[in-house]
């Protein structure tokens, strides 16, 4: 079986596992225990990991808080900032294509009395900067826009958004889970105030992530989790040393391999798209062709039923929509936001290409995809009608 669903579910890098081994075996001390050597070793490892994460994004290690993953980081950032400043500021701006956890956090804030503007996106998946500027209100406390979208791979104009927010003294949060370690990120150049990081998206362990919280100018958050005051009081709870060490190692490896990986993934992505599009007509790539991360490709196959195609390609493990929405039968809200027709949204497939993807896997996937799209189209009466030159939108479907 070949696993191309690499956007959400990626294998851990062996170098990451290696870095974690000592902390899963001999060095099991609690990093917060101040009174013995076991604790000191773990603490040193945890602080080293913190520095590795910070180095990847151009931050200071004191600005990195370890969390259980990007979902927690997103929750902390959005709810934390909103609630801290709620006496004077009650408005938040985000986009319609954010990850479920961001949208859901905003929704829950709305029940607490906050107002949220969900910016629409253009057909290419990018936000309109003019609309962003127009959306600001005198009591806006936070803008949250993800760097790279997990479903269609588009890259938002983060530098521009950062400038706009900085000029208006509004905090800028970005969910960088899909971007970290894959494209260069610098919190100072990009004027980012809060950033969510996920361990398992960069070939690190599952169950760990981080939140970058700017110190100058200071961003204040109301902590989500109360307790012993770990992580500067922002996130109580014992930091899982092996997982933190793994995250740190993943960040360091990602920094070293970024150029090599990017070049290779770009090559493989172009191979996949070119091959499919040259063999099969009526394929739409969702999202801007240029402003994207190459490793996340979303294609819609017109006149093909999505679930059937997915079942046919089941040994290649792709996904229609994203993991967090794959349980429901609704077409992805991201595709709906970019204006994809209902039927095209249902027949969309997401291909994820990563560090460990081989050329063989790409070729196999392409071959199977072409084979099944052709087969399903042969069976499709809609396809037959299109071939005959009938405009599908002109058909009056009768009720039986």
């Amino acid at each position: 079986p070949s696993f191309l669903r690499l956007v959400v579910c990626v294998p851990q890098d062996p170098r990451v596992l290696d870095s974690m081994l000592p902390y899963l075996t001999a060095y099991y001390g609690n990093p917060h225990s101040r009174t013995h050597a076991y604790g000191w070793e773990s603490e040193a490892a945890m602080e080293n990991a913190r520095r590795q994460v910070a180095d990847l994004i151009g931050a200071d290690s004191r600005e990195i808080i370890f969390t259980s993953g990007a979902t927690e980081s997103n929750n902390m950032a959005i709810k934390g900032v909103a609630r801290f400043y709620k006496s004077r500021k009650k408005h938040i701006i985000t986009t319609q294509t954010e990850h479920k956890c961001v949208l859901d956090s905003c929704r829950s804030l709305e029940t607490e009395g906050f107002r949220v503007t969900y910016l629409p996106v253009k057909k290419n998946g990018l936000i309109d900067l003019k609309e962003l500027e127009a959306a600001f209100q005198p009591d806006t406390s936070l803008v949250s826009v993800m760097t790279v979208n997990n479903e269609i791979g588009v890259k938002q104009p983060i530098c521009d958004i950062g400038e706009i927010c900085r000029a208006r003294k509004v905090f800028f949060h970005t969910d960088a889970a899909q971007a970290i370690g894959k494209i260069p990120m610098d919190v100072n150049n990009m004027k980012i105030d809060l950033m969510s990081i996920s361990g398992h998206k960069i070939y690190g362990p599952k169950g760990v992530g981080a939140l970058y919280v700017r110190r100058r100018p200071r961003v204040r958050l109301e902590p989500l989790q109360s307790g012993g005051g770990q992580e500067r009081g922002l996130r109580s709870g014992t930091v899982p040393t092996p997982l933190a060490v793994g995250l740190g190692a993943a960040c360091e490896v990602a920094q070293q391999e970024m150029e090599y990986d990017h070049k290779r993934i770009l090559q493989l992505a172009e191979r996949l798209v070119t091959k499919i599009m040259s063999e099969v007509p009526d394929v739409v790539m969702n999202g801007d062709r240029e402003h994207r991360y190459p490793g996340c490709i979303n294609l819609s196959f017109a006149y093909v039923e999505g679930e059937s195609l997915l079942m046919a390609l089941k040994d290649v493990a792709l996904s229609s929509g994203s993991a967090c929405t794959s349980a429901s039968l609704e077409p992805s809200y991201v595709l709906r936001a970019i204006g994809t027709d209902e039927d095209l949204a249902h027949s969309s497939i997401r291909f994820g290409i990563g560090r460990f993807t081989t050329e063989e896997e790409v070729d196999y996937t392409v071959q199977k995809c072409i084979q099944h799209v052709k087969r399903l189209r042969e069976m499709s009466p809609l396809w037959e009608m299109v071939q005959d030159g009938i405009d599908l939108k002109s058909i009056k479907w009768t009720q039986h």
Partner: protein
Amino acid sequence: MAASSRAQVLRLYRALLRESQRFSAYNYRTYAIRRIRDAFRENKNVADPAKIEELLNKAKANLEVIHRQV
């Protein structure tokens, strides 16, 4: 001096590739072999002895990483 380092480098290269073949996971195996080959090829013309030593140490460390997991 040069001759013995060349032999040393080749020995390390072969050891890394041999060890990588033992990964049972298809993706790890293919990645390791590909990455090792590309890295050695890329650094083929490095002349500075200090840099060469640094690269060889990195290679040795990676050999041990692989060895622990195969």
